[in-house]
């Protein structure tokens, strides 16, 4: 009886924690947007310098690795599709399969996972260590809302940069696929890419882009809310960083699946 009750209590607590986590994130999102739009009215104006800095850290600095990974994923898809589709003599379908899976799925997914690992964890670590060292308290007391100072710039930069990186990663992936598959299909890479362009419609691109907006929200909100909830010194910061990465990648994959289900039905 006691055991059962305790188990129930634990389930209840976990559920409550999950919901309050989502609630906390929602409040953060609301505040971050409120400061972005109306902050100047309550003496908390949005500054451009930190936004520029976040744009650089989240976007520009990630550019080489994102392009490289996109290219590699493209190669990989080319290899797989050529091999598996030639079994059915359907080699010519490679172009459409790669084009759709890259633009709808892999471009956004690979980029989001990479950025979660790079920038989501960095956000959690930065905010967490600021909390532990009372820097967040110091900001509040100076009259600087930590959400406006730390979250709003990161959120805006993420919303701009994740879609931008997604486009670049997709392009790199298509080039990678073209370089591998074109010889196998007896066409030039340029012809491969032109063919790809013809096959893609706006809906495909939009699917990838709208996902990346959602992923941008997920990465930022999970990163900052785990950062704000840090307690217990340096060890707590380390745990929060790991937690932010695991949580955001899990959410990204699950949300991606649900999204794909509803859009492609």
């Amino acid at each position, binding site marked *: 009886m006691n055991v059962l009750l305790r188990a129930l209590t634990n389930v209840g607590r976990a559920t409550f924690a999950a919901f309050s986590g989502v609630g906390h994130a929602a409040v953060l999102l609301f505040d971050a947007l409120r400061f972005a739009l109306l902050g100047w009215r309550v003496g908390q104006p949005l500054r451009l310098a930190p936004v520029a800095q976040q744009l650089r850290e989240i976007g520009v600095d990630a550019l080489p690795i994102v392009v490289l990974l996109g290219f590699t994923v493209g190669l990989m898809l080319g290899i797989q599709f050529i091999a598996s589709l030639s079994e059915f003599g359907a080699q010519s379908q490679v172009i459409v399969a790669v084009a759709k899976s890259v633009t709808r799925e892999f471009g956004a997914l690979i980029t989001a996972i990479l950025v979660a690992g790079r920038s989501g964890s960095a956000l959690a670590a930065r905010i967490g260590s*600021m909390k532990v*060292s009372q820097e967040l308290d*110091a900001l*509040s*007391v*100076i*009259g*600087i809302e930590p959400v406006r100072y730390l979250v709003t710039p990161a959120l805006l930069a993420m919303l701009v940069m994740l879609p931008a990186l997604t486009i670049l990663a997709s392009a790199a992936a298509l080039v990678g696929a073209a370089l591998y598959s074109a010889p196998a299909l007896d066409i030039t890479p340029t012809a491969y890419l032109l063919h790809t362009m013809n096959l893609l419609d706006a809906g495909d691109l939009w699917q990838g882009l709208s996902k990346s907006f959602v992923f941008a929200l997920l990465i930022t909100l999970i990163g900052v809310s785990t950062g704000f909830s840090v307690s217990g010194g340096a060890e707590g910061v380390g745990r929060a960083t790991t937690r932010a990465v695991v949580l955001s990648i899990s959410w990204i994959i699950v949300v991606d699946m649900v999204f794909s289900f509803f859009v492609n039905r």
Partner: protein
Amino acid sequence: MPSHPRDGPALQPPGLGPEPPVASAQALIDVHQLQAWYGRRRVLHGIDFRVAAGEIRVIMGGSGSGKSTLLRHLIGLQRPASGTVKLFGTDLGTASERELLAVRKRIGVSFQGGALLTSLSVGENVALPLREHTRLDESTIRIMSRLKLEVVNLGGFQDLMPGQLSGGMVKRAALARAIVMDPRLLFFDEPSAGLDPVVAAELDELILRLRDALRMTIVVVTHELESAFKIADTITVLDQGEILMTGAVEAVRAAPNTRIQDLLNRRPREVQVDAETYLRRLTEEEG
């Protein structure tokens, strides 16, 4: 419209003695029946606390007595569960965002660990409040923040990062940031904790100078008896979430209260637990 930091009624009539009246009509801080809870545990049991303009008030008390909790309420980091906290007549519990900001521009806080932003240099840390709250141009901001660094004897250190400073320098840099807007009210958490006696004494001197030269009202939380007696006009003794007494240094030293004498003479306190509570605590299950 951000106001110039030197605006506001910063000047007191001169000739304010070292022991101003404790309960004056123009109290800058007015706390009434403040209670604070952590979960189901009450850590402040109805605190009444007033600080008059121009005085240096020291809050003393043993570890866990609630000093930091009281301070967090005074600077608006925690809202009172019940009771009121008023600064400059503004009730922090019911203040709007804008009113709270107005109060925050008029106070300075030096945290125990300094709490300098590690991503900014010392100079940028000190300049931060000016950048945020004034429209002064860059060179004026630079001059004003260097001036404040000079005040705390850190002239020329503005380009160092916080990680490159010693403990005493961090405290002084934090103090420079706290006073850069010329606040009327300064809060100082554990100024001398973890410092060698000479540096600690220098900080004490600095606090006295701030009050005398800039006419600040200063609230200091400290463990250090020596420093407390040296700088305080009035001492508030906190014990287990209650105020044991508030009075001038001599009055506190002479107080007959045994808890106060224990604190002053560093005597270990007698732990009184009756057998039943003791047994219950041992056998209590978690959760």
